[in-house]
């Protein structure tokens, strides 16, 4: 499947909270969407406010996701079409994904005995069944579009070109931190919640990847070096033992294989 994604156009959003309502309904979460202002284990998407504008906040489905890089159990994986999904049957609950996500997206079920990670999974089950994410289906204003990422990028560019005075000339998610499947455009005001536009080009996941690539080599060289030191230290001890023996009186009989034995250490 091609890389899919969503385009959020903040200029089109009227703040009706239908995306949140649809998400909560699908996940079986209780509550009034208008009252929910923070991501939580029972709110995978919210609306943040920048002046009069509403800015959706949910998982950005990074192309090189820090959370997937972090997960030791492969409970978080990125599908070939771009959804970053979670499998609680593999998760060991270390919460390193929460630490690692640069945008603090993953949430935890702090009151559960066997807590799960909660975050938007792009409704991968609906996508794989040929459908579209619940929020995109619910949006009456066309502010959340689902489609192929390339097409959405072209659409975003057109919208910015057609009305340059209404849009910040930047597509959030095209390149920042390696790019996201979830793109966002909107007025200049959204920079207040989305941050400036000088993001890194690569994901933080690349930092760990770069360091860990050297690990196998390091381990092999390290083990070899330790063995070398062991061998040299044995020689040194033997030589020192010889010297000590040479200094002692010749009348004493030489102990058989004495030097070797004296190096033998036991645990």
């Amino acid at each position, binding site marked *: 499947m091609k890389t899919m994604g969503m385009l959020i156009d903040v200029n089109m959003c009227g703040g009706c909270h239908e995306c949140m309502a649809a998400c909560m309904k699908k996940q079986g979460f209780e509550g009034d969407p208008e009252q929910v202002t923070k*991501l*939580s284990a029972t709110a995978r998407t919210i609306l943040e406010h920048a002046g009069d504008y509403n800015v959706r906040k949910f998982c950005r489905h990074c192309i090189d996701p*820090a959370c*997937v*890089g*972090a*997960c*030791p*159990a*492969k*409970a978080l994986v990125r599908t070939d079409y771009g959804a970053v999904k979670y499998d*609680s*049957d*593999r*998760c*060991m*609950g*270390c*919460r*390193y994904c*929460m*630490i*690692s996500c*640069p945008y*603090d997206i993953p*949430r*935890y*079920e*702090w*009151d*559960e*005995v*066997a*807590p*799960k990670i909660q975050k938007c999974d792009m409704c991968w089950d609906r996508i794989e069944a040929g459908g579209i994410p619940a929020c995109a289906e619910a949006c009456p204003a066309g502010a959340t579009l689902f489609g192929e990422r390339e097409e959405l990028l072209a659409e975003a560019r057109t919208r910015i070109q057609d009305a340059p005075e209404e849009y910040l000339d930047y597509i959030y998610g095209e390149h920042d931190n390696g790019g996201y499947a979830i793109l966002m455009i909107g007025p200049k005001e959204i920079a207040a919640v989305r941050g400036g536009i000088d993001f890194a080009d690569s994901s*933080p*996941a690349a*930092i*760990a*990847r770069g*360091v*860990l*690539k050297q*690990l196998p080599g*390091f*381990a092999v060289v*390290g*083990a070899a070096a*330790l*063995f070398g*030191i*062991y061998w040299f*230290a*044995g020689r*040194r*001890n033997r030589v020192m033992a010889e010297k000590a023996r040479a200094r002692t009186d010749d009348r004493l009989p030489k102990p058989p294989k004495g030097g070797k034995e004296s*190096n033998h*250490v*036991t*645990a």
Partner: protein
Amino acid sequence: MSRRNWNPGFWKTLFFIVLAAGLVVFWMRWTRGLGSVTHLSDAFPWGLWVGFDILCGIGLAAGGFLITAVVYIFRLERFKPIVRPALMTAFIGYMLEVLALMLDLGRPWNLWRPLFSWNPDSVMFVVAWCVTVYSVVLAAELSGMIFEKLGWKRAQVIQRRATIPLVILGVVLSIVHQSSLGGLYLTIPGKMHELWYSNFLPLLFLVSAVSVGLAMIVVESRISGRVFGHHLGGRTLTELGVAQLVMLGIYALVRFSDLAARGALPAAMDLGYESGLFWLEVGVGLILPALLLMVALKRSNLRLLYGASLLTVLGFILHRLNVSMTALESSRGEHYVPAIPEAIATLMFVGLGFAAFRLAARYLQVFPHEGDHARLGDGRAS
């Protein structure tokens, strides 16, 4: 050695009270969830149990791999009497970490997954691997003690033959483990305060683990001297002190040149919450012990050496708590203070550590026969 301060009755009672309270924490965690016993939150998913029990616990166990390297790889046999106590400490430390994970992990029954599904991008995968494999290596390194107790001669011989490969494997795993604990934080430059984020965190964690490993051997020798009447000779202790001083020097060099290179030194100069905790860590835990060590070594004062070593341990703990908690507070916009049950569980792990060591020392040959009751400062390296 005076045993005036050692009152078994008092400590035993305290231990059982803390143990009972700790078991209640376990029970609450496994009936009502982590939220019922901790101040952890989505903003602070890691707290005292990760910052102290795991990051510090593993570092404090570093004496084990150090001393095996010194005795079996560098073959400096006069350090042999400390091999067993140091390995025993390390093993107990790792077992306690696994126990702490049973409390902290949300779904610990999946702990084995990293062993079989490799994620080469994940520092946590490396950490999980090291914990598991090194625990087994430590058990194998110590098994000789058990075979000795049981009188299994053949097993003892086999175990002895495997010593060098085991030691090399253990040293490599430990170096990787110690540094990867710091490596966990490499991927979040944007979330950490500039006084603590560093590309050199893995190296800083490794070097500080080595210095604290050395300090712990001095501290353990002192404690076991009080409790069991075993302690190391003055010459050995002095050598440990010199090595500790060298490691503190290397650490300070890396720490400060990194701060300077990143232009973070001004942040240490303005008065505030972070800079205050930074200077507490560096002043009390790095500069002061280094100065005391110099004086102690110059005057061959073993009491001072012991005090300096305690400060090294303290500084190490402060650094790891700062990295795992303080450094994150400003980007979270809130403070994290551990809940009382979190502190109780941590105390329980510390208590269990002491108790396990006592039991091991009573029933196994942890301390050597020869050199028993050797006095501190007699100049003999047992």
